C-alpha cells in the first residue's frame, strides 16, 4: 500500500460496499457509509478545512467529535442549509454538500497585521468618533461569523417528547453501557442516550479485547441485550444538551440529517425532555491538546483522534507521525500508527521517566521514545512538515532545540473529563492534582459519574464503575440492592503511570514574542493573549474569557479552557484550583432552535380559541381580531366595502334595526354558596347583597393598589347563586383571583366558583327590533319592557333550547343577550339569524361593538384604562360603594395621596375640532401646540371612531384634570406635522338619558 494513500485497505467500521459521493468547497469527493465528513475529508487528503477567525490562518481537523474547533462547515443549501456543523459530527451521505466557513479575504489581509490585533484591540481603537465606529463595525461584522443563516423558512419539522425514567444514562461508552445493563437488570426504567451515530463510545475505536473477544463483539452482545429489554429506551444520535434543576434534562435527537436531504416523513430533530430520578453521567473524557508555537498547523491533531481515524474509520491522516505526550495513554496512538505500517518518527514525552506497559510496548516495537523533551514549535506552511523539540526539565527549557521531520503531530496533554453536564447544574468542578484534571464536583444524591468522566483511566475500571453506578442509581430509584449482578469483562491492559502536567510548552522566546501558541483554536486565542489580559488587570478567569474570547466559541472551549486556566494560574502565580473554571452552561453542543421550539410554531405557536359560531363567521367573510387567544369577528365586509363602510352599516343596523354579535368569549363564572353575596361585595366596588334575584349589576374589580383591572355585569340567579361576566382577555385571571382570595384569605366564606365561559354560547341581539326578532323564537318569556326590564335575566327556551336571556347592553340599545349551552350555540345562532332575516339583521364584530359603546362613553378596560387608572379617573365613582361593612379590594388605595390629586388624567369625551377628522387612537394631547419638545403631557386619545349614527367623529381620552376642563381645547400633534384640535366634552355622546336601552 502506498504511503500516501490515506484510506487504509482494511479495518474500521466503514462499509466499503457503500461508496458515497459528496462535495466539499466545490470539490467532488468520495467516502463510505460509516464515515463522518471529517474522516472522509481526511481520507481524501483535505488538510485545510477552513481559515481562522481572526488571523485567517489555515486550519485542519484536530479532533474527531464534539470537541472539534476548526472544521466548522456549512452543510446543505438554501432553506435547508445548516450553518455551523462540525465536520466530525456530520455523518456522510450520498450527495452531501459542504462548505468551509472560514474567514473572508478581508480577514486574511488583516491577518497580516496580526500583531496589531492583540486580545481586546477593538476596545482601544475605532473610536475617533461615533461615525467612524459605525464604519469599522460594518467591516468587523462582515469579517466575523462562520456560516450563513438559511435564507428561507425551514422546510423540516421538529417535535418534542416528555420522558420519566428511573435512570438516565448519558453516554454509551463502556461505562454507560455497563450502567444501563445493571440498572435495566433490576427493572428500572432506563433511558440511554449517546450523541454519536453508533453506541459504543471509545469502544468503537478500541483495539483491545474484552472478556477475550474483540471490543466489537462485546458491544454487539451488550446492545442486543439492551435492545431486547422492555424497560430500556435507546436514543442514538441524541445529545444531552442541558442539565437543569431537579434532574430535568434535555436531549436533542437528530433523526434525519444523516439520511441526507431526501424528503423524509416525520421529524428532523426531536427534543426529549427528561425527568430522571437518577442520572448516570458516563460522558467520557476529551483529550487535552498541548500548547506550543504554531500548534494550529494542519496536521497537528489529538492523539486519540488519530487513533480513532485509524481504528474506526480506516483513515491514516498522514505518513510520518510524531507523537507528543505527557501520559502513557498517548503511546497507544504511536502503536496504532506502527501497526498500520506507517512511520513513527518518535514519541516525545515531556515526563522525566516514562515507564509503564504502553511505554514498554512502544519501545518493544522499536519506536524511539524521547523523554524529557517537548515540541516547542511546529513547522510548516499549510501543513506541518516538522517540529522543533527541546529538552525540558520541570517544564522549563534546558537545552538547544533540534528539528524532526514529520507530517503529522499527535498530541496528548492528558484528559479532560467531559464534566460539562454535571457542571451545568452549578456545581463547580474541582481540580485534582494527581489526575492533572478537573473532576466533577459533588453532584449530590441524584447524579452519579462513571468512567473517564470521573477520572477513571482504565477500561476495566470504567466497566466496573459503570456497572456499580447503574446498580446504585437503580437502587436509589427504588430498584434492587445496589449491588452489581455481573462481573465486568476482563480487559488486557497494562498499568499506566501518572500524567504529567504541561499546559504551555515554553519557547526559547518569551510568550509575547514567540510564534503564536494557540489555546483556543476557534477564536484564535493565544497564550500571549491570556498573559496580556492578566497584565492589563483582567485577572478573573471570567474576565479573561470575556477579554480574550477564550471558550466563547461554538466548542465552548472543550479543548482550550483547561490549558487557558492553567496558563492564567501560572501567570498570576496562583493554583489552578484557585483560578477555577468559567461557568458551564447549556448547550453541551449547540442545539437547533427548531428542535427546542418543536411543533409549537405556525398554527401551534399558540392555541387558538374558537366560539361555537366560529364556522359561521368564517362562512360569512368575517375579518378577525385576536383578543387574548380568541378569534373574534372584527367586522363582516360585504363585497366591495371598506372597513369603515362595513362598520357604518353594522352600527346603523344596531341603532336603527337589529344586529347580532357573538359575545361567547366573555368570561363567565358561576358563583354559588351561602356567602356568595358577601364575597362579591369584597371583590367588586359595587354592592351585591341587596341585588334582587334575577337582577344584574355592573361592577369594577380593582387591584389592591386601587387600579381597575376588570369590569363586568354580574347577575343574581338564585338566593345564593350568581353569574359573573368578565372581560374576554381576563377571564382566567379573574377566575384565579377569586379563588385566590377565597382560598388564602377568606376560606371561611361558603362559596364556590366554576368557570362556565366555554359552557355558554352568547348571541347578543341589539337594536330597536331585537325584541320582535327574539319573540319569534322565544315564546316562554314575556319580553315586554314591563315584564322583563333592563338589567334583568330570565330563563326560558330560545329556538327550543334552554336559555338564559339577559337584558344588558354594551351598546346603549335595547338588547337581549341570549345564552345557551355551547353545544347548541350554532343552531340557536342560525335560528336568530333566520328570525331576523326579515328585518335585515346584521352580524357585527368587535369594531362596531367598540363604536357603539364609545358613543355611550362605556369604557373598555385595557383600552381606555392602562393599568394605572382608578375608578375616579374614569369618572366612575358612581360604581363605587365606599361604605360597605368590609370594604372591597383596593378600597384603601383610593385615598392615597397621589390618587386624590385633582390633576390626574381623567376620562373625557373629545370632539374633533373640524368635525371631520377622526383623532388617532394613541394620539397625545398637549395644551400648547407651538411648544418645542419636550412638551408636557396633557393627555391622550384612548378610543376614537367615526360615528355613523352621529355623522361625526367621536373620541374618548384621558386628560389631566379633564373633568374640570369641559369645553376647553386641546391639541393633538401628529407625526406628519399636522396638529388636530379637539374640545373636551362629556364622554357620553349618544342618548345621555339612557332611554334607548331601557325601552
Amino acid at each position: 500500500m502506498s504511503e500516501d494513500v490515506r484510506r487504509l485497505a482494511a479495518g474500521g467500521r466503514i462499509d466499503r460496499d457503500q461508496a458515497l459521493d459528496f462535495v466539499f468547497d466545490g470539490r467532488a469527493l468520495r467516502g463510505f457509509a460509516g464515515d463522518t465528513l471529517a474522516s472522509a475529508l481526511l481520507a481524501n487528503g483535505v488538510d485545510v478545512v477552513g481559515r481562522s477567525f481572526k488571523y485567517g490562518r489555515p486550519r485542519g481537523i484536530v479532533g474527531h467529535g464534539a470537541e472539534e474547533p476548526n472544521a466548522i462547515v456549512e452543510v446543505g443549501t438554501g432553506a435547508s442549509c445548516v450553518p455551523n456543523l462540525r465536520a466530525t459530527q456530520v455523518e456522510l451521505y450520498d450527495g452531501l454538500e459542504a462548505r468551509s466557513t472560514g474567514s473572508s479575504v478581508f480577514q486574511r489581509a488583516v491577518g497580516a497585521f496580526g500583531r496589531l490585533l492583540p486580545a481586546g484591540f477593538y476596545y482601544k481603537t475605532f473610536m475617533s468618533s461615533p461615525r467612524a465606529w459605525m464604519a469599522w463595525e460594518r467591516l468587523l461584522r462582515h469579517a466575523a461569523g462562520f456560516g450563513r443563516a438559511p435564507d428561507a423558512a425551514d422546510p423540516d419539522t421538529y417535535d418534542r417528547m416528555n420522558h420519566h425514567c428511573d435512570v438516565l444514562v448519558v453516554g454509551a461508552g463502556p461505562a454507560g453501557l455497563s450502567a444501563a445493563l445493571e440498572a435495566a437488570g433490576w427493572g428500572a426504567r432506563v433511558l440511554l442516550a449517546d450523541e454519536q451515530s453508533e453506541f459504543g463510545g471509545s469502544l468503537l475505536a478500541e483495539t483491545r479485547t474484552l472478556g477475550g473477544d474483540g471490543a466489537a463483539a462485546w458491544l454487539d452482545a451488550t446492545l442486543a441485550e439492551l435492545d431486547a429489554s422492555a424497560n430500556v429506551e435507546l436514543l442514538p444520535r441524541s445529545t444531552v444538551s442541558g442539565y437543569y434543576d431537579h434532574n430535568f434534562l434535555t436531549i436533542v435527537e437528530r433523526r434525519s440529517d444523516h439520511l441526507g436531504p431526501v424528503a423524509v416523513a416525520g421529524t428532523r430533530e426531536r427534543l426529549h425532555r427528561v425527568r430522571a430520578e437518577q442520572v448516570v453521567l458516563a460522558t467520557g473524557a476529551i483529550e487535552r491538546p498541548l500548547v506550543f508555537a504554531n500548534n494550529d498547523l494542519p496536521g497537528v491533531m489529538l492523539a486519540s483522534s488519530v487513533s480513532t481515524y485509524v481504528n474506526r474509520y480506516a483513515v491514516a491522516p498522514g505518513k510520518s507521525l510524531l507523537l507528543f505526550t505527557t501520559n502513557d495513554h498517548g503511546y497507544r496512538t504511536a502503536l496504532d500508527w506502527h501497526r498500520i505500517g506507517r512511520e513513527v518518527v518518535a514519541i516525545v514525552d515531556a515526563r522525566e521517566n516514562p515507564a509503564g506497559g504502553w511505554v514498554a510496548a512502544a519501545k518493544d516495537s522499536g519506536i524511539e521514545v524521547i523523554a524529557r523533551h517537548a515540541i516547542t514549535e511546529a513547522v510548516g506552511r499549510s501543513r506541518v512538515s516538522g517540529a522543533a523539540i527541546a529538552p525540558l526539565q520541570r517544564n522549563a527549557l534546558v537545552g538547544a532545540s533540534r528539528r524532526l521531520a514529520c507530517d503529522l503531530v499527535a498530541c496528548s496533554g492528558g484528559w479532560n473529563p467531559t464534566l460539562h453536564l454535571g457542571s451545568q447544574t452549578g456545581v463547580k468542578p474541582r481540580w485534582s492534582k494527581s489526575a492533572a484534571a478537573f473532576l466533577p464536583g459533588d453532584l449530590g444524591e441524584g447524579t452519579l459519574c462513571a468512567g473517564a468522566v470521573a477520572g477513571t483511566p482504565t477500561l476495566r475500571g470504567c466497566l466496573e464503575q459503570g456497572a456499580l453506578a447503574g446498580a446504585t442509581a437503580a437502587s436509589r430509584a427504588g430498584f434492587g440492592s445496589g449491588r452489581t449482578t455481573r462481573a465486568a469483562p476482563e480487559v488486557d491492559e497494562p498499568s499506566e503511570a501518572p500524567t504529567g502536567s504541561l499546559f504551555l510548552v515554553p519557547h526559547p522566546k518569551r510568550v509575547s514574542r514567540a510564534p503564536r501558541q494557540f489555546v483556543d483554536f476557534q477564536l484564535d486565542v493565544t497564550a500571549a493573549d491570556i498573559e496580556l489580559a492578566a497584565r492589563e488587570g483582567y485577572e478573573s478567569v471570567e474576565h479573561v474569557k470575556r477579554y480574550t474570547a477564550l471558550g466563547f466559541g461554538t466548542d465552548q472551549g472543550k479543548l482550550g479552557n483547561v490549558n487557558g486556566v492553567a496558563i492564567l494560574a501560572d501567570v498570576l502565580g496562583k493554583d489552578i484550583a484557585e483560578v477555577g473554571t468559567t461557568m458551564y452552561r447549556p448547550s453541551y453542543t449547540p442545539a437547533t432552535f427548531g428542535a427546542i421550539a418543536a411543533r409549537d410554531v405556525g398554527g401551534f405557536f399558540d392555541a387558538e380559541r374558537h366560539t361555537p359560531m366560529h364556522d359561521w363567521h368564517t362562512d360569512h367573510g368575517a375579518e378577525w381580531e385576536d383578543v387574548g387567544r380568541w378569534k373574534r369577528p372584527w367586522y363582516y365586509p360585504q363585497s366591495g366595502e371598506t372597513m369603515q363602510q362595513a362598520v357604518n352599516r353594522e352600527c346603523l343596523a344596531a341603532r336603527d334595526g337589529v344586529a347580532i354579535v357573538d359575545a361567547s368569549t366573555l368570561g363567565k363564572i358561576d358563583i354559588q354558596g351561602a356567602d356568595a353575596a358577601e364575597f362579591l361585595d369584597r371583590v367588586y366596588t359595587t354592592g351585591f347583597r341587596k341585588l334582587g334575584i334575577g337582577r344584574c349589576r355592573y361592577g369594577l374589580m380593582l387591584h389592591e393598589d386601587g387600579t381597575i383591572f376588570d369590569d363586568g355585569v354580574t347577575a343574581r340567579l338564585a338566593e345564593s347563586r350568581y353569574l359573573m361576566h368578565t372581560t374576554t382577555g381576563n377571564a382566567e385571571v379573574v377566575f384565579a383571583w377569586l379563588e385566590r382570595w377565597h382560598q388564602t384569605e377568606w376560606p371561611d366564606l361558603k362559596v364556590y366558583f366554576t368557570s362556565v365561559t366555554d359552557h355558554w354560547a352568547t348571541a347578543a341581539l341589539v337594536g330597536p327590533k331585537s325584541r320582535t326578532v327574539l319573540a319569534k323564537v322565544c315564546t316562554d318569556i314575556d319580553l315586554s319592557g314591563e315584564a322583563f326590564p333592563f338589567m334583568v335575566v330570565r330563563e326560558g327556551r330560545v329556538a327550543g333550547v334552554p336559555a338564559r336571556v339577559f337584558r344588558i347592553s354594551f351598546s346603549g340599545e335595547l338588547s337581549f343577550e341570549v345564552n345557551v349551552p355551547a353545544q347548541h350555540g350554532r343552531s340557536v345562532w342560525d335560528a336568530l339569524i333566520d328570525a331576523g332575516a326579515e328585518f335585515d339583521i346584521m352580524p357585527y364584530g368587535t369594531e362596531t361593538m367598540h363604536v357603539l359603546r364609545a358613543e355611550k362613553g362605556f369604557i373598555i378596560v385595557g383600552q381606555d384604562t392602562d393599568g394605572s387608572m382608578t375608578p375616579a379617573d374614569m369618572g366612575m365613582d358612581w360604581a363605587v360603594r365606599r361604605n360597605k361593612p368590609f370594604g372591597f379590594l383596593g378600597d384603601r388605595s383610593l385615598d392615597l395621596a397621589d390618587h386624590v390629586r385633582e390633576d390626574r388624567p381623567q376620562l373625557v369625551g373629545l370632539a374633533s375640532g373640524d368635525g371631520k377628522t377622526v383623532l388617532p387612537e394613541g394620539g397625545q394631547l398637549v395644551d400648547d401646540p407651538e411648544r418645542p419638545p419636550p412638551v408636557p403631557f396633557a393627555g391622550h386619545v384612548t378610543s376614537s371612531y367615526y360615528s355613523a349614527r352621529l355623522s361625526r367623529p367621536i373620541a374618548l381620552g384621558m386628560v389631566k384634570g379633564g373633568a374640570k376642563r369641559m369645553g376647553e381645547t386641546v391639541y393633538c400633534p401628529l407625526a406628519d406635522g399636522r396638529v388636530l384640535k379637539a374640545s373636551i366634552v362629556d364622554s357620553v355622546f349618544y342618548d345621555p338619558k339612557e332611554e334607548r336601552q331601557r325601552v
Partner: protein
Amino acid sequence: MVKYASISETRCAGSNPGRMERYSLLSLVRHARRYHENWQRAWRDPAPKKAYDIVIVGGGGHGLATAYYLAKVHGVTDVAVVEKGWLGGGNTGRNTTIVRSNYLRDESSHLYEFSLKLWEGLSQELNFNVMFSPRGVLYLGHNLHDMREIERRVNANRLNGIDAELLSTADVQKLVPLMSCSPNARYPVLGASLQRRGGIARHDAVAWGFARAADAQGVDILQRTEVTGVRCDNGAVAGVETSRGFIGARKVACVTAGNSGVLAAMAGLKLPIESRPLQALVSEPLKPCLDVVVQSSGVHCYVSQADKGDLVIGAGTDSYNGYGQRGSFSVIEHTLQAICELFPAFSRVRMNRHWGGIVDICPDACPIIGETPVRGLYFNCGWGTGGFKATPGSGYVFAETLAYERPHPLAAPFSLDRFATGALVDEHGAAGVAH
C-alpha cells in the same frame, strides 16, 4: 517559562490616578512594536482603605458609572466601589445590551433619553470603545391593541423629543427581510415602532470603560470584596462589613441590582422589589443577517445580531423569585418558538449557550433612585429587565444625588416614597418585554 513578576507587582500601581494612558490606533501600533509587553493595567487592585467618603456597593455598570461621575463631575474621589465578584459579573455582563429611550411616561423617557445622549459620546468620554451601535430598535405590534399602544408611545416619544417612527408591515419587511410578515401568521406583524438612535453596545466594555476611567480619577475598585453587613449608628450609616473587613463610609450607595433586597435586609429595610431570573441565549456566530434590533412583547422575544455574528436573544423572566442566575427551560422553549415563528429561517440555527441573570423588579417596572429611611444609605436599583441602557444616565443622576444629598431632578420621580403615596410611574407597557 518566562514570567513577568510585574503582573502581580503592578497590581496597586498601574495607572496612576489622573494618568490614564490614552487608547488609540497610535498607541496600539506603539505597543505592538514592543510585543504588547508594556500595556498598563486598566485599573489598580488596591487594598481597601479604612474609610471612604462614599462606598458604592456593586461593581456593575451602574455602580462604576456612579463612581466615575462622582469623581469626574463632582470632584468626589474618596470613593470605593466594592464588588463581591468580578467587575460586570452581574447583569451588566449578562444582558442583551439593548439601548433605547422610547419609554411611555414623561418621567422615564426623560431619564432614558438623557442616558441615550450620554451613550452617543460614551466611547470618546471614556476613551474606551464600548461599541455603541445605534442600528435601530424595532418594536413589533401583533394585534390592534398592540398597535394602539405603539402609536401612543410613538406620539409620546416625539413630543418628548425622542426619535420615533411608526412603521407599516411592508416597512418592517424591508428592514428585516428574514422576518415572516405573513398576514396569516398566528401573531401577524401589523406594524412596528422604530427608534433609529437605539441599538446595542458591548456590555463588558461598559463596565471596563467606566472602571478604568473611574480608577484614573482616583476611585478605589475593590473586587472580590463582598459586603456582608451594613453598619448603622443612630439611624445613620457608618460603613459596611465586608469579606475583607469593615470599611467606614459617610455614605453608602447600594447599586446591587438583583441583590438589592439582600443589601436592604442588612440595613433592616425591605424594598418593593422582587428578584427574578431573566434569561438570554446566543446562537452560533453567523454572517450578518439581521441589521436592527427586533423586539416583540406579543410573541415575547427580542433579538439582535452581535458584532461577532451570534444572534443574541432575550427570553422572559421566570414568574417566581430566584437568585440562581439560571431560569426555567420552558422559558427558553417559549422564546425559541417565538424566534422560529418570527424568523422561520432561524429554525436551523443552533443555540450555543443560554444563561440567566437576576433582575430586580419593582411593581411599576421603574427604578428606585435615592435615599432611604437610614441616613446616608442610598439605593439605586429596580432597573429590572431594562437597566443596561440606563447605565450612564443612572450613574450621572445618582452621582449628583449622592454628592448634593438631594435628588437630581431626573431622579426625583423615582424616589422610594412613591410606594406610599401611590405616585407610581407605570411602565409595564414600555418595559413589557424584557430588554
